[in-house]
């Protein structure tokens, strides 16, 4: 059901975007702000998923949006504008990362073979974590930290699919990989995050935060 709602919303948004893009091409350049406004956060989050540094991510996000503006004439509407924008952002962030040789600091999980099955490490029972816990900064920070510790190829897929809600096909197209690879990486990313955040595995992290003694953040 939520997907249907999203699809209808997407349709309306798509029509508005087409009009906006046409008017921007015709010279109403200031409308570009309106076009990108819904995606500012996604663009930043995409850059951050690669660069894992606030100021680098902000700079890459700005540069990506400038490139999108400069090349808006080349956008043919075969993909959604948001997908095109995210693709430009990914390339910008990857380029910067290569230049700065940040890959030297990639986590070990990056080198794992994605073909082999991932075996969950923890089987503690999870009760449902209410989304209200996200109001707490320390919970959001903990989740962001766990995501940062994944290898880049898992982070990219997870961010596009589970945070930006792109479809499997859109994620594959944006990253230039097959849908089968998206599914494999997504499974691994989700299981790794579950292990990293599992209440039974790491008794230390919650005690470092300001939670009541012996209580998990959720």
């Amino acid at each position: 059901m939520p997907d249907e709602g999203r699809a209808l919303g997407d349709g309306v948004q798509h029509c508005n975007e087409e009009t906006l893009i046409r008017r921007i091409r015709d010279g109403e350049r200031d409308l570009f702000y309106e076009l990108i406004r819904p995606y500012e956060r996604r663009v930043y989050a995409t850059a951050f998923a690669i660069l894992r540094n606030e100021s680098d991510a902000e700079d890459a996000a700005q540069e990506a949006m400038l490139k999108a503006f400069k090349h808006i004439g080349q956008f043919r509407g075969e993909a959604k504008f948001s997908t095109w924008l995210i693709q430009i952002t990914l390339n910008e962030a990857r380029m910067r990362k290569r230049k700065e040789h940040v890959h030297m600091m990639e986590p070990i999980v990056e080198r794992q073979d994605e073909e082999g099955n991932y075996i969950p490490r923890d089987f503690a029972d999870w009760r449902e974590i209410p989304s209200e816990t996200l109001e707490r900064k320390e919970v959001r920070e903990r989740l962001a930290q766990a995501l940062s510790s994944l290898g880049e190829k898992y982070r990219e897929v997870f961010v596009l699919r589970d945070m930006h809600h792109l479809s499997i096909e859109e994620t594959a197209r944006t990253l230039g990989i097959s849908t089968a690879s998206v599914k494999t990486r997504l499974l691994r990313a989700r299981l790794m995050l579950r292990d990293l955040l599992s209440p039974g595995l790491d008794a230390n992290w919650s005690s470092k935060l300001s939670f009541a003694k012996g209580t998990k953040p959720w």
Partner: protein
Amino acid sequence: MVIRCEEVWREISNYLEDEVDPALRATMEEHFRGCKHCTAVLDGTRNVIQLYGDERMIEVPLGFSHRLHHRLENNMHGGRRSFLGWMVAAAAAVLTAGAVELASSASRSREPRSEHAQPGAGVPPEMMVVVSEKGKTFHVPTCTFIHDRTNLRTLAAREAMQEGYVPCIRCMKQYLKS
């Protein structure tokens, strides 16, 4: 039908995406009823998806939007120019447009850079790819078969093909005819 835990873990993501067939779904559900471990993995994975999918998980630094608009403003309008400045800029734009048109009309007719080229018709034209000046092929940025990474340029696949670049047979494999 009986299913092993390892198989359940392999399909758990597809199960949550509702991408397993009804028979497998029924088998997995039967398994979950009797296996605490797999139920824990299922609940945890579902929680991960729900938590990270929440809008609140995407935070931007304070003032991000303001700084972005400021930078766009500077680049769109080049700050506050004088009338003379606008005239010079307009003249330069006309000259540049002419040069770009000349360059692009030259590149449109360019032959493929490799005689072993595979037709790139299946490659999505707007997909962003990278090329190097001396290379013959275009790649996805993560391709491990890029030989010269020092002078890479990003452009749309369509533009790369117009310039005579051909798809890398490894990273573009899925779009090429076998």
